[in-house]
């Protein structure tokens, strides 16, 4: 029987309320007696499946919520742990690079020490640039070299 038909058959029956609690307490007809307490009220065939469905829905909903929260926490934790591993790794790399940089500074300073270069040069038959000679331009030069006395040019040296 459809709802419209039921309404037509029982015009005094109120419209069932909307909401979750509505199926639990169906409005009884006027003057109807409550069943005795010690006798379990037989579940109306329309209400029992709906309650079961609701429990299942709630369980699914709770599982999804709790599951997603747990998953979220685990994921967050994993991300943080991963991040901390990355930081740890980066710190280790910084330490290693600092050590390497110090080693390179040490090596560079040692290898570029003038005494070492001079000794190497001597071993390979080179001379140190300690004995310079200044060359003077003579004759008809366009401009005198810096500091040269112009009279010396006229005298040829």
């Amino acid at each position, binding site marked *: 029987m459809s709802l419209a038909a039921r309404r037509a058959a029982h015009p005094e029956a109120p419209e069932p309320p909307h909401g979750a609690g509505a199926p639990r307490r169906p409005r009884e007809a006027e003057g109807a007696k409550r069943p005795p307490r010690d006798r379990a009220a037989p579940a109306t065939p329309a209400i029992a499946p709906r309650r079961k469905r609701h429990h299942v829905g709630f369980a699914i909903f709770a599982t999804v919520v709790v599951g997603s929260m747990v998953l979220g926490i685990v994921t967050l934790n994993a991300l943080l742990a991963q991040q901390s591993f990355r930081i740890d790794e980066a710190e280790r790399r910084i330490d290693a690079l600092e050590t390497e940089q110090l080693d390179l500074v*040490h090596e*560079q300073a040692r290898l570029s020490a003038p*005494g070492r270069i001079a000794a190497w040069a001597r071993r390979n038959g080179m001379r140190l*640039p*300690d004995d*310079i000679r*200044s060359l003077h331009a003579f004759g008809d030069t366009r401009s005198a*070299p810096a500091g040269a006395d112009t009279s010396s040019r006229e005298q040829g040296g």
Partner: protein
Amino acid sequence: MKRPPVRRLVVLFAVMTLAFGTIFVRLTVLQVSQAASFRDRALDQRVRRVELPAVRGQILDRNGEALAISLEARDVYADPRYVRDPWATAAELAPLLDAETGELVELLTRDTTFVYLARQVERDLAERIEGLGLAGIGFLETSRRYYPAGSLAAQVLGFVGLDGQGLSGLELRYEDLLAGEPGERTQELDPYGQPIVGGVDVERPPVPGSAVQTTIDREFQFHAEQALADAVQANRARGGTVIVLDPQTGDILAMASYPWFDPNAFAGSRRGTYRNRAVTDAFEPGSTNKVITAAAAVDRRAIGLRHELSVPWQMEVGDFTIHDAHEHGIQRMTIGDIIAESSNIGTVMVAQRLGESAMDAYLSRFGLGRSTGVGFPGESSGILPPLYEWTDTSLATIAYGQGIAATPLQMAAVYATIANDGRWVQPRLVLGTRGPDGTVEPAPRPPTRRAVTARTATTVARMLAKAVAEGTGTNATIAGYQIAGKTGTARIPLPDRPGYYEGQYVASFIGFLPASDPQVVIAAILDRPVTDYGGIAAAPLFQRIARYAITRLSIEPGRPLRPPPTAGSER
């Protein structure tokens, strides 16, 4: 029915009350009044604090090349309680630590909980030892100071002790900046020395030291040292000093003292070699001091440039007879001739025209008698007797550089004043510092003051150029360049009584180039060379360093200065 033993109960109650009262009082004492103390003691037992050493700042040359760096190192220690087999452990460690097995066994069997086996061991070696897994052997993080160029500028840089503290030179002077601030790690440990998870674990990271950038040019320093060592050897001198100075800025480009030492192994060196003679040792400057007499006379117009004096070869001053280096008849000399020929008698005659008060004032103006302010530990201020202590011979002897004492750096600064148009500039060794965050803080500009007028300085430079071209300093000439300088051959005072060593001299040559536009001042000083004279022993040393300076600093010849009037000249 039997009556209860009331008296016994009372006694029992009293005893129990007393016992509980005692316990209560004791607990109050332990947990209230002494609680803080016990808490601290408990914490001390659990908590270990380890100092984290800060990396010491580098010392750099003016071009940023490292002169002193710190390397990672480890201290190797032992806790003899945990060493299972001292002989086996010692036998394994001895070849690695370069120590005797017996010595190590003695250390490993001591009745103590901590003993150093080796300090500042290289990191790689420490890792090898760690790899042996020896029980009772531990390592502490530390650093080792390393001077990559060995003995280069050793006395300037100084050295650092085993605990990382600067003990001499710039290492000592800039200890606060270089050392940084050590950090600390606080950990809560269990009875087995393992960190307690979740316990106290706090680390305060160390702050590295700042780098100090010196004015020293590493290449120039090396060349100056080589030239000095060769000159000392060639002249069989006891030692020597070289200073290379930028007269405009006061920057010390090189400062060498021979003999030197290796700061990497300073403990095995002779202590006397630690001294930076250029700054700590005062000597009687001899004829190099005549430049002050000449500058004072010209500045005060005590004598005209063309004024000729009749100069004998010796002269009575007070109870003494002073004389020139070589016997000669009475000569007509201008002040230019006197400086060029380095006549003692002529200088005394000029000083007498100047007077004691003026002479003393100009000595002070040129910075004698007080430290230069270069900021080097142990700097000597030299000896300049106060005017009221001058005797009847003081003016005469001081005029030609005896009876006073100055450090090589003070004398270099005197010549730098002439080279810098009469303005004295405080020499400096540090260009600035670079903090751990990379911020550079340049050193403040060195203070300057006018000693003589620019005109006076140029006139004196002309005299000094003549001294090199025609006078006692011809061994310092360089073809194409006009050098200004002065020789000095000074007697050495006896350390314990008045008088001088016989036949022993300090030979010196101090000058600058080019004479008209000075770019560099060089002081070359040799201690007791067998060749005696500054013009023979020190001038060639100056020449060699000056030649290098021309290439290193790209010095152009400059326009030559006109020579000062000579006696008998028409001008």
